[in-house]
Structure formats: C-alpha cells, structure tokens
C-alpha cells in the first residue's frame, strides 16, 4: 500500500482496436498517422517509470464476470476474423501475474464476479494484440488485460475501475492505463481501397469530433457521464452500453483534471480511430461541470456556463 492509498497513474491512452496501424500502416496516410501516434505513445511509456500497462479491451467480450489475463508468458499467432488477409499477428507478451491475481481478489471484494485466465493458447483479442504490440513491443513492462463483460452496465464497469485502483495502490505500481476502443464503430460493410477510407457518416464524424474536444480539454468524467448518449448516437448496438469511458474515468479517478492530447484521429474502415493521451494534472481551471472545487463544503453554485464568454 502506498502512503496516500491512491494509485499512481502516470497517464491514460485511448486507442483503436483495428489491425491496420500494426499490419498495413503504409496503406493509407491515415493509417500511417495512427501508427505514428501509437509510436509516440510507446516512446512516452518508455520514458515513463511505468511498472505495468493495464489494458481494458472492448474486443474481448466475457460472460462469466470479468476475465483477467494472467498467463505469465502469452505466446501465439493471432489472425483477425475480418482482416485475416492483412497478415498474421505473432505475439509474445509478458503478463503481470501477481497483479492479475490481486485484481481478481479486489474485484470479488467489491462484489464483482471475476476470474483469471491462465491458459496456453488463449485467444488474446485483436485490440489487445494491436495495442500491446505497438505500445510495448519489447515487453519492457509487464501488462495485464481486462475483458469487457457483455452484460455489465455502468455501475459494474465503474466498480471494475475502482478495483483496478485498489490493486495498483496496494501493489504500489505506477501504471499506464489503456482503453482499446473505437469512437464511432460503424464500419463499411464492403471491401474498400484504404486510400479512400473515411468516417462512415457525417454524423459519426461530428460526434467523434465533439468527443475529441472533450478529451482534448481533459474532460474525462464528463465523457463518462455522456456514455449513454454516445452509445445511442454512434455505436452499433452490439453490446448493452458504451463502457470504455466509464472504466477509464473510474480507473483514473473520476474527475476532469487532465491534460488531454489527441495525437491522431483517422478512419479505420469507416469507424473512428483515435489515439489520445490523458495525463493527470493539477491545473484545472474549474470550468467543467464535474470538477467541483470542493465536494465537502457548499460554496454556492458555480456558473459554469458563462465561463469563456467574452466580457
């Protein structure tokens, strides 16, 4: 346990699950920009003092509670269901088994069903493989991957983030947390020339850009609060909710005090792919809805709406 009982999260990364930045970065300018953004993140991780990379992947669905990858050395060659023709993805990952087991324990302590998976040949999902290959290619830092439970909704996902905080704090590990998810996730349903890739619709693009503004302002908790709107507007209804912002916000501390940086935003077969970093900051200016200056003492209503108006 560290002194403050608060985990040390160095920064967060939001990145897309599609394999193009890994397998075919030269096929289009956009894929190349995403690849460069991943590489920038890799560099920042290398320069950080991170002890663990903790991944929450929307392309790893689970049913029996929350699954936690615990196999110390996960080795396989992965092939994507749709993009198999782009090539194979051999991987050799080093997982933080100690963290995984403690994470399971902390999930259960918080009332969640959870289990570790520790099997040779377990099919690690495309999104996790892409993220870990690009962000941590030499296995410099051990990782852990969390699944996205199909039936889980807001409270469960937020509590999962809190269990991650408990575990990081207990083990005194400095973490980079990674969410693997598209923004808008509607792809073209036919094969396209990568050079002509674009966001599937104007509406998806408009929403993506609005979400990126929030990220850029560091308004992670506000995004978390917007999850249901995002789900209804730009997510194909494959699962019950858009959960990554809930998990990321809960894991990073449920506030809006971050320095956000959008490193790239490009289309991936029609879906919205963005590489974003969020670094905890102390310099919030108090102009956001959920970054209350004092949650213990009433200091009057803050007028958040007139901030930024010309005076």
């Amino acid at each position, binding site marked *: 346990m560290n002194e403050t009982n608060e985990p040390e999260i160095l920064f967060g990364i939001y990145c897309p699950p599609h394999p193009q930045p890994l397998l075919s970065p030269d096929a289009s300018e956009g894929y190349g920009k995403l690849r460069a953004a991943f590489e920038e993140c890799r560099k920042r991780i290398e320069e950080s003092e991170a002890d663990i990379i903790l991944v929450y992947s929307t392309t790893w669905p689970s*049913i*029996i509670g929350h699954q936690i990858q615990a196999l110390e050395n996960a080795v396989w060659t*992965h092939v994507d269901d749709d993009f198999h023709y782009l090539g*194979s993805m051999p991987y050799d990952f080093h997982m933080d088994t100690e963290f995984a087991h403690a994470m399971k324990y902390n999930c259960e302590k918080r009332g969640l*069903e959870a289990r570790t998976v520790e*099997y040779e040949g377990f099919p690690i*999902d495309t999104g996790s493989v892409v993220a870990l290959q690009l962000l941590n290619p030499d296995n410099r830092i051990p990782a852990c991957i969390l699944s996205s439970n199909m039936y889980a909704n807001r409270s469960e996902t937020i509590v999962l983030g809190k269990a991650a905080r408990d575990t990081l704090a207990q083990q005194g590990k400095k973490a980079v947390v990674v969410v693997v998810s598209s923004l808008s996730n509607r792809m073209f*349903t036919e094969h396209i020339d990568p050079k002509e890739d674009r966001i599937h619709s104007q509406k998806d693009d408009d929403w993506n850009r609005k979400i990126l503004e929030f990220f850029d302002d560091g308004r992670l908790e506000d995004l978390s609060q917007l999850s249901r709107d995002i789900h209804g507007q730009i997510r*194909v209804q494959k699962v019950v909710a858009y959960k990554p912002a809930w998990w990321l916000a809960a894991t990073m501390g449920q506030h809006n005090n971050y320095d956000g940086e959008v490193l790239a935003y490009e289309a991936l077969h029609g879906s919205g792919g963005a590489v974003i970093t969020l670094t905890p900051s102390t310099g919030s200016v108090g102009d956001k809805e959920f970054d209350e200056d004092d949650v213990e003492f009433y200091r009057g209503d803050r007028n958040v709406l007139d901030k930024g108006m010309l005076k």
Partner: protein
Amino acid sequence: MTKGQIVAGCLAPHPPHLVYADNPPQNEAYSEGGWETLRWGYQRLARKLKDIDYDAIVIFTPHWQTYIGTHFLGLPEFSSKSVDPVFPNLFRYNYDLKVDVELSEAMRDAASQEGIITKMMRNPHFRVDYGTITSCHLLNPEWDKPIVTISSNRNTHYYSPEVMIEQATALGRACAKAIEESGKRVVLVASHSLSHRHFVEEAPLPEDMSKEHIYNHSQYVWDMKIVEMMRQGKSREVIDIMPEFTEQTIAETEGGGLIWMLGAMGFPDFPAEIYGYQSVIGTGNVIACWDPNDDTREYVL
C-alpha cells in the same frame, strides 16, 4: 454429372460444455460428465449421419463474426488448438481438420453472383472458431469428412433482424445452387442455441447438474414455441417469427445460421426430427434435423 443435393440439415448448438462433458482425447480439460440430454441426443444424430452417404459438412457459425461480407474457409487443412475465449476452463481442443476448398469456392462464387459481399479466408494461421469445432465434433467425432465453415455477417446488429433474414436466405439459396452444381451430397449445419441469456456466474463444478436450469421461464416458453413449430414442419413460420424471438430471448438465431440453412433447403414443410432440448449455463438448446428423405425421416422424440 448427377445433381448434388443437401442430404440433411442439422441445428447443432455448440456450448463447449458438451465437448467438455464428453472428455474426448482432443480436449485438455477433464469433466465428470453432465448435460446428457443433449449429448445423448447428439450421439443418436451422429449415428443417423453415419447411415447417410455424404461428401462434406457445410457449417454456418456465429463465432466467426465478420462485418465486411461473408467469409469462407479457403485452405485444405487447418490444425491448431481452439481455446474458448469465454469458457477456457472447459474447452482447449486440439483439432486437425480438412476443408472442401472446391465446394467452398463454388459457394463463394455463387454468393458473389447473388450480390453478396464475400471473401475467401486463406491465412494458414487462422484459428477455426469453437462453434465449428464443437458442432462438428459432436456430429462427427471421427472427423472423417471435410468441412466448409461460413462466417456470420453481422447483419442483425448493423441493420436489423429483417435484413438478416433477407441476406441469410439469399446466401442459403446461393449455397444450395452451388451444392447442386457440384454434384456433391452435403450435410448443412446451423451451429447455435435458441434462447441465449447466460448466467454470469459459474458453479464451482461446471458440470454440477443440480445447478443447471433455463435462465427464466419466458426463455423456455419461447424456445418451446419454436420447437413446436419445427415439429409441425412450419419452417417458414419459424423464420417469420424470428425477429420477435431473437429480440425477446436474445437468441443466438441472430447470427443467421438457421435462416441460412432453412433457406438453402427451400423452407421445408416436413417435420424436423427433435433429438433433445436442454439448458446450458442458462441458454436454451435444441438439437434438430431436417431429413428431406421421406423414407429415412424419423419421429425421434
């Protein structure tokens, strides 16, 4: 050349629990049994298939999910280990299977001609999905016939259950045409459950049958309605009611397998043979077979 034909169509659910319960040498996990109603039903259907002369199994699986068209296995052999991403504790199965690439390409070509977006899968590292492995193992444990796996395009989620019916029916028609022109005798397999709400917790001993039951009664009533229509030979009506059924029971029919198979068979009006119904971790599963041969069709259960 004699015309090819579909010699049977099987609705073959693929909970990995059934392979786990069987303890075949290919699976690494060990069980004390369980789910006999389904396993014994499968064994009876497997015996029936032994008496049918056929060349290949064509299987449509919801666990090879593709968003960009319908994909077909396109290499003659696949050998690897299939680990279920949801139940890895139960299913880690070493497989070594053969594919009828000629038939696969013929079906792909026929589907393309119908305007369906298609793709051949020719990556040798590709892992065949556990739906295919489970259903094929249970129907043909000897693995002595080549197979073709067809992916499930995600029409239901991307568009609607009605679009899925249109697309999967068109795919079924195209596959039937290709089979006819191939001169081959083919068993079709739709690999999926009916109602599909799972428990999110597992018993300490997964095969403890004192813990197994349907997720809720509504799921059961819907499943029985569908099974009854199958018995009565109302396959067209099964498809007509499917959007409602799929929505109400989050049914695995959403993947399109049964629609594809019944579409390929021209929506048969003869009764389906029923081999068993049982829940697996709360989901509803029926094993059924449509045998177009009046002489061999049986009243099983």
